[in-house]
C-alpha cells in the first residue's frame, strides 16, 4: 500500500489511528505490528513471510550476540554478527540482484540462463538495512538486545517508514518502543507534516513527473526541451522522496515516534559534498557508520580514503537499483566527491556562493539524468540532445507554456523560502490568527491532494527498484 492512495487515506489510516488510540498503552505495539503487516502484505501477501523471517532471524541474532558476549565468547558473538549480515545480504541480493547477475553472466559468456523473474519485495532494501543496523549496534554494544519479539517486530515492520524510508536505526527509536508518550500536540504536528508531504507528492511530484514522462518519451527533443525534462525529473524525485519522508516522519509523530530528518533542502547546497549531507540523510548516515568508517574512513591516508569513497559510492549506486546506470550514477558522485575533497572545495570557498550553487545544480541535474534513464543508449541520446540538439522548437515553447507555473512553484518549493516566509508571517500574527491560517492551509492542501489523487490517474511509485 502507498500513502498517496484513497485506500490508505480513507480506510487504513483512520482505522489504524482509531484502534491505536483506543487500545491501552501496552497493546499499542501489537496494533502497530498488525497494521504494518496488513500494510505490507496489501500488494504482495506472500512477501510477509520474508519480512517475518527477517524479523525472527535478527531478533535471534541480537539475543545470540548478547548471550555470547555475556559468556565472554567474543568469537561466537562475531560469528553470529557475521551470520546476521550475510543472511540479510543474502536475502537482499537474492531478490534484488539475481536477475541482474544472470543477465550480466548471459551477455558476458553468451549464455541463455533463464531469469528468475522475481517481483522485488517492496521496501526490502530499507528493512534489511534497518535490521542489519540493529545487530551491528548490538554487537558494538551501542544498544541492548530487544527481548520482546513483539516490540522488535513492531520496529522492523513499522509501516510509516517501511517502503520508502527514512532508514530508521534501531538506536534512534529504542526508547520510544517502550516508553513513548503520544500527545495531541505531537499528533497534530505530525498530521500537518503528513499533509504537507502528501501535497509535495501529489500536487508537485506527480505533476512534474508527467512532464518528465512526456519529454523522456520524445525521440528527438530539442536541447532546451531535454533540459526542461531533466529539471522536471530533478523536481519530481525531490518532492516524491522528501514528500514520502515527510509523510513517514509525520505518521511517526502520530504514533509517538520521532524519526530523524531525511532531507534538509538539498538543492540549496553549494557543493556536492554538502548536497549529500542534506539528501537522503538516513542512507548517507547508514553507509558512513556501517561501511565507510569500518573500512577506515579517512584515517588511513588519502589513497585509502579515495578507495573507501569509491567502494561506498559503488554500493550506494547499486543499492538504488539493480542496473548499471545506478552504478554509474554512484561512481559519478564518487568522482565528484573525491575531486571536491582534493581540490575543488578549497576553490569553491574562495568564489562567490552563486558559483557553488550553479556548479552543484549542474552536478545533481546531470546526476538525475544518469539516475532516471536505465538504458545506456537512450541515456547517451538524451545527454547528446541536452548539449548538441537545436536549442528550441515548437514543442519546447508549448511545454514551457503549459508547465511554467508548475515548474516555478516547484523551484521555490524546494528552497527554504516557503518555510521562512511562513515563520515570518506567523511571527506577525496573533496566536489565533496563526492557527487559523495554518488550519486553512492544511485543509486546502489536503482537499487539493484528494482532488488530484481521485482526478489524475498519474501517480507513480518510484521506489519499486529500491
Amino acid at each position: 500500500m502507498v500513502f498517496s492512495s484513497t485506500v490508505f487515506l480513507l480506510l487504513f489510516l483512520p482505522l489504524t489511528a482509531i484502534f491505536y488510540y483506543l487500545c491501552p498503552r501496552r497493546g499499542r505495539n501489537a496494533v502497530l505490528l498488525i497494521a504494518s503487516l496488513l500494510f505490507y502484505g496489501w500488494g504482495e501477501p506472500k512477501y510477509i513471510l520474508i519480512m517475518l523471517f527477517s524479523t525472527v532471524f535478527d531478533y535471534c541474532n541480537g539475543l545470540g550476540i548478547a548471550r555470547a558476549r555475556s559468556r565472554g565468547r567474543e568469537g561466537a558473538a562475531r560469528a553470529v554478527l557475521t551470520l546476521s549480515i550475510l543472511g540479510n545480504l543474502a536475502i537482499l541480493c537474492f531478490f534484488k540482484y539475481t536477475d541482474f547477475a544472470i543477465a550480466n553472466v548471459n551477455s558476458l559468456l553468451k549464455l541463455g540462463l533463464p531469469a528468475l523473474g522475481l517481483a522485488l519485495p517492496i521496501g526490502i532494501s530499507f528493512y534489511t538495512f534497518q535490521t542489519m543496523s540493529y545487530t551491528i549496534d548490538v554487537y558494538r554494544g551501542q544498544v541492548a538486545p530487544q527481548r520482546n519479539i513483539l516490540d522488535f517486530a513492531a520496529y522492523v515492520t513499522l509501516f510509516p517508514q517501511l517502503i520508502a524510508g527514512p532508514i530508521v536505526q534501531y538506536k534512534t527509536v529504542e526508547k520510544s518502543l517502550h516508553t513513548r508518550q503520544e500527545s495531541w500536540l505531537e499528533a497534530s504536528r505530525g498530521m500537518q507534516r503528513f499533509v504537507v508531504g502528501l501535497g509535495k507528492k501529489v500536487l508537485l511530484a506527480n505533476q512534474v513527473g508527467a512532464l518528465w514522462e512526456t519529454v523522456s518519451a520524445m525521440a528527438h527533443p530539442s536541447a532546451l526541451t531535454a533540459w526542461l525534462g531533466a529539471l522536471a525529473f530533478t523536481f519530481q524525485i525531490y518532492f516524491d522522496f522528501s514528500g514520502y519522508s515527510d509523510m513517514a516522519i509525520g505518521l511517526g509523530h502520530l504514533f509517538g515516534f520521532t524519526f530523524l530528518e531525511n532531507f534538509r533542502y538539498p538543492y540549496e547546497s553549494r557543493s556536492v559534498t554538502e548536497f549529500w549531507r542534506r539528501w537522503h540523510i538516513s542512507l548517507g548516515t547508514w553507509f558512513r557508520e556501517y561501511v565507510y568508517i569500518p573500512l577506515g574512513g579517512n584515517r588511513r591516508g588519502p589513497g585509502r580514503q579515495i578507495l573507501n569513497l569509491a567502494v561506498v559510492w559503488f554500493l550506494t549506486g547499486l543499492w538504488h537499483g539493480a542496473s548499471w546506470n545506478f552504478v554509474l550514477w554512484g561512481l559519478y558522485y564518487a568522482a565528484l566527491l573525491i575531486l571536491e575533497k582534493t581540490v575543488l572545495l578549497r576553490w569553491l570557498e574562495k568564489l562567490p556562493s552563486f558559483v557553488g550553487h550553479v556548479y552543484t545544480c549542474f552536478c545533481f541535474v546531470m546526476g538525475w539524468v544518469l539516475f532516471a534513464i536505465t538504458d545506456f543508449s537512450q541515456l547517451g541520446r538524451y545527454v547528446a540532445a541536452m548539449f548538441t540538439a537545436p536549442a528550441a522548437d515548437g514543442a519546447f515553447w508549448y511545454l514551457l507554456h503549459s508547465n511554467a507555473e508548475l515548474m516555478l512553484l516547484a523551484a521555490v518549493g524546494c528552497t527554504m523560502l516557503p518555510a521562512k516566509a511562513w515563520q515570518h508571517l506567523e511571527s506577525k500574527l496573533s496566536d489565533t490568527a496563526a492557527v487559523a491560517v495554518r488550519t486553512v492551509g492544511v485543509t486546502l492542501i489536503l482537499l487539493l491532494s484528494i482532488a488530484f489523487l481521485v482526478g489524475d490517474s498519474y501517480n507513480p511509485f518510484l521506489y519499486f527498484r529500491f
Partner: protein
Amino acid sequence: MKKRELPPLIAIAVILLGLSIASLVLPDRSFSDNENRYLQQSPRLTVDRVLSGRFSDEAEKYESDQVALRDFWMGAASTIQWLTNKRDIGGVYLGKDGYLFARVTEEDFDQRQYEKNLRTVADFFDAHTDLDCRILLAPSPSTVLADQLPDGAPMYDAAPRYQQLTEVLGDRVVDVRQALSEFPTYYRTDHHWTTWGAQIAYNAWCRATGRQEHWAELTLATERNSFRGTLYSKVLLPGCAWDEIYFVPHPGVVSMDCDGTVTDSLYDFSKREEKDKYALFQGGNWAKVTIDTRAENGRRLLVVKDSFANCFVPFLTGEPYREVPGDFERIVMLDLRFYGDDLEELMAEEGITDVLVLYELSNFAADNNLFKLNG
C-alpha cells in the same frame, strides 16, 4: 498541551473521516456517465483473491471509483490544471475555441503497424479486383484543425502518412482532407467527425466513385448544446464546450440487423438520454451490422470500419422522401475488433460488389485486427 495546536488536526480528521464515512454510506454507482465507463464494484474477499493480489487491486480501484463527490474532485483537479495553463490533461490537449484533441505524438504513432495495415488492405484489394474497392482514412481532428491545437503542441505529422497511403493504394484512395478542412467538421468534445463532416466525406466519396453528389438535410437530434463526448470524459473540465448531434432524418432504410437485433431505424434514440450520444448512430459498435435499403440496384457494399463510419453510412442509404435513391441495396458493416467469422464466405454469401475501408487515420494505425481481412 496548547489548545491552539488542535484545530489543524481536527480539520484533517474531519475531512478524512467525513469522506471515508460518506463514501461508505452513499450507495455505489455502477456506471459513471461523466467518465463514460463502468466503475469498480465492491470486491469479493476470498483467500485466493487476496493471495493473488487481485483483491487489493480491486479494493484500491473501488475506494477511488466510489469515493464520495468523485465527479467534483475530478472537475476540481482539471480546473486547477487549466488555471495553471496546463494544456494537456489525461492525454488530451485543451485547444482553442473549446476544441479538445486526443494526443497522438510522433512517438505514439505506430508506424510499423500502419505500414503493415496498408499492405494488408492492398493485398485484400488485389485479391478482389472484380469488386470496386476504396479506402477512406478520415484525418484526425488535429490534422485539419491544426490551428486550434495549443501552440506548438507535439502531434504526429499526417502528411507523410497520407503520401504513403497513396503510394500503396493508388487511385483506390478517397482523399477527403481538402474537403474537410473548409468546415468545422469535428466535435469539440468528442473524437469523431460531426455528421456534417461525414456528409462532406460522403460527397468526396461520390466524386471519387463517379456518383452524383447529394446533400442530405440534417436534423438536430438532441436539445441544443447537450452533448459532451469521449474527450470530455477524459478531461472532465466543468467549463468545457457543448456539442450538438445532427442526423439524416429520413434515411431509406428497410431494416437494420445489429448482431441479430433487428430494427427498422438506423438510430437508437434512447441513446439521446445517455452520456455517449454518438451511440445514437446504430446504437454503438457491433461486430456485424446488415442494413437493407429501399434501393434495388444490385449493388452490395461491405464496409470495414471503425466508429467514424457509423454516422457516414446513413448517407449511403439515400432519402426516398426527397427522391434520392440509395447507393446500395444492402450494406454490411464489419468491425474487425469484434468480428471473428470467415470473411470470404460472408462476402460470397452476401454477393458483395463494393468495398469501403473507412477508419480515422490514427485509429487505423493503432488497429491490430486488420489481418482478419486476409483470413
